[in-house]
């Protein structure tokens, strides 16, 4: 195993970044969205447009429907009214499913507790149709401060560490739009910095990001705000 | 074309459905009573007794209608459920849910009358005859549908999930029927089968027809009434409900 060679490869970063799926020049639009949970109307007539390179921060108090909105935007839920468009296509009829153009990180980390961080990420990558390389995964995990934890079953990791593994998985799947539900929860300051760097990098290569968060994290780039409730 | 589209929309709008059903129910109820009165008179008094089965055959006048309604209502329920699921028409969901209890009731009655008819005819209450067994499984399908609907709190999700179940069930009903029939012939030969008087007298036929119609009208009336209650419950905060309450409507 020629380990010394694997460090500091200048090309590696490019192979990760260059892959942003070819549809990255499309706009992402929400038109006249409405959602209800049980009896309650969460929001209606919600509209916005997101162009490549832009970030949208969704804010609002607890229970105002942030998570519901993100699930609708990612195509997991159907809105009560309205439609979400990826370019000119409704998101739920995009070729290959919504997952081919966006990545979603919900409240749950979606990790298999009996598998290691590395296995989890490799499998997710293959499920997404990619062929993730081991070194890339290890580098990403290292960057998020998980060096040495890669091959432990995930159930041994702390809440914050699990969150980082989930983030690593998402960042390693190059999708034009990343939808992040409270990505900062359970992260410490250092990792927040790393994540900020990753978000900014995603924006500079014309990616889009939709994010909900409690704490204000200033991000360099074209940022919009959407207030619910 | 467009006009029909609007009419259909008018019918599916909850308030219109509520009013229309409210006006129709008394008519269906009256028809039900009239048809049952005539049917029962013909079936119990006028029709002569069977030369083989004596008077016990008179159970046929309720056994056959309940069995038909049990099966037919399941198909109708699945059709409404499918419409509700595919085209997202809430009224169809309401109708599907409203049909289930009546369908289950008729299926149960078909089993009950079948058993009471079986005792004098075959000497036992229950035989594992293809038709009775299929009806029993149909009853389980109804119960499953209602249990699933009740188990899910979110109303839309409950409707959609039980719609999937109803559609799976309706595909399975013929498969179940044929496999049970096959099993039945293999195990018992043709020794026990219901022989519904090969040459049915006209009076019997007419009576049966009237009783089937009566069961039909009853189902329509009760299902519409239940759909109205269901609607009220779903839309209790809507303006049209409040308006009708203030107006002192029933």
């Amino acid at each position, binding site marked *: 195993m020629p380990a010394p060679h694997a460090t500091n490869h200048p090309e590696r970063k490019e192979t990760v970044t260059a892959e942003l799926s070819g549809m990255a020049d499309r706009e992402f639009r929400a038109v006249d969205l409405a959602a209800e949970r049980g009896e309650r109307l969460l929001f209606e007539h919600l509209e916005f447009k997101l162009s490549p390179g832009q970030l949208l921060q969704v804010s609002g108090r607890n229970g105002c429907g942030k998570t519901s909105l993100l699930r609708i935007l*990612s*195509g*997991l*839920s*159907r809105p009560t009214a309205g439609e979400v468009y990826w370019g000119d296509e409704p998101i739920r009829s995009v070729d*290959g*499913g*919504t*997952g*081919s153009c*966006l*990545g*979603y990180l*919900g*409240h*749950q*980390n*979606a*990790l*298999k*507790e*009996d*598998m290691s961080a590395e*296995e989890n990420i490799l*499998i*997710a990558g*293959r*499920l*997404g*149709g990619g*062929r993730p390389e081991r070194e890339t995964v290890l580098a990403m995990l290292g960057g998020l401060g998980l060096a040495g934890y890669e091959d432990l079953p995930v159930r041994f990791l702390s809440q914050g560490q699990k969150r980082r593994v989930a983030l690593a998985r998402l960042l390693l799947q190059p999708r034009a739009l990343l939808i992040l539900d409270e990505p900062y929860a359970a992260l410490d300051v250092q990792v927040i910095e790393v994540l900020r760097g990753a978000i900014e990098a995603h924006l500079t290569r014309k990616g889009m990001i939709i994010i909900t968060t409690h704490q204000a994290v200033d991000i360099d780039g074209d940022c919009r705000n959407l207030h619910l409730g | 074309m467009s006009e029909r589209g609007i009419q259909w929309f008018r019918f599916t709008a909850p308030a219109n459905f509520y009013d229309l059903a409210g006006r129709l129910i008394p008519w269906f109820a009256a028809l039900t009573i009239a048809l049952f009165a005539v049917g029962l008179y013909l079936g119990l008094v006028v029709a002569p007794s069977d030369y083989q089965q004596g008077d016990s055959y008179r159970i046929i006048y309720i056994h056959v209608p309940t069995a038909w309604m049990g099966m037919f209502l399941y198909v109708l329920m699945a059709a409404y459920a499918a419409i509700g699921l595919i085209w997202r028409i809430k009224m169809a969901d309401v109708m599907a849910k409203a049909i289930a209890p009546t369908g289950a009731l008729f299926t149960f009655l078909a089993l009950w009358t079948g058993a009471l008819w079986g005792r004098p005819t075959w000497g036992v209450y229950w035989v594992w005859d293809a038709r009775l067994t299929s009806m029993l*499984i149909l009853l*389980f*399908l109804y*119960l*499953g549908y209602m*249990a*699933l609907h009740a*188990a*899910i709190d979110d109303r*839309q*999700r409950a409707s*959609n*999930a039980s719609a*999937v*179940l109803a*559609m*799976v*069930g309706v*595909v*399975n009903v013929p*498969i*179940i029927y044929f*496999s*049970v029939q*096959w*099993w039945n012939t*293999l195990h018992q030969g043709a020794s026990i089968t219901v022989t519904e008087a090969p040459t049915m007298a006209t009076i019997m036929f007419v009576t049966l027809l009237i009783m089937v119609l009566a069961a039909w009208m009853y189902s329509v009336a009760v299902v519409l009434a239940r759909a109205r209650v269901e609607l009220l419950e779903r839309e209790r905060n809507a303006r049209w409900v409040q308006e009708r309450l203030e107006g002192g409507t029933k």
Partner: protein
Amino acid sequence: MFHPLLALLRRDLTLALRRPQDALTVVGFFVVVVALFPLGIGPDPEFLRSLAPGVLWVAALLAVMLSLERLFSDDFRDGTLEQLLLVPEPMGLLVLTKIVAHWLITGLPLVLVSPLLAIQLNLRPDEIAILMLALLIGTPILSLIGAIGAALTLGLRGGGVLIALLILPLYAPPLILGAGAVDAVMHGSSAQAHLSLLGAMMVFALFATPWATAAAVRIMLD
């Protein structure tokens, strides 16, 4: 091993191997249920023999049904099911892959231990062969149909009991055909008709049920 579906299959099998007790519990249930029957109906070998096809099939059917609750619930709880919905592959195929993995873990072991139990119930070798063949064709049907129920009860309280009510009525046809096949051999006729119909049913279930299951998963996660 790079194709997404193969990756999913391997993932599920790996996870099952890391927790072998789950699969073993199902086999254990099957064995215990069959072993209890003679205690209930008496040890007469001929009588047991005549009941054997039905007993073995009903026990297998219950074992499969009980195991089904786990088919999606783990993935549902940790959020991986949600991520599966975002995988750019048809959900029906993903669901089918999970069912195949589930059958390999629970259905196949049932087929493999069935001869031991059949011997206890005094079945003859040719009858045992047909029993295994019928189970081999029939248990996938049970898994395929049961998956719909597993998906429809995701996240519901009392889901296990509800699955039984939803799914057991639909199990009537495979039960009739599967137990009937062994019965036919026992009475000296051929089991071919039973097995052909069972095979046709499996093909139909293979093509039809994964889509219903996929729809159910989408609905329950909506």
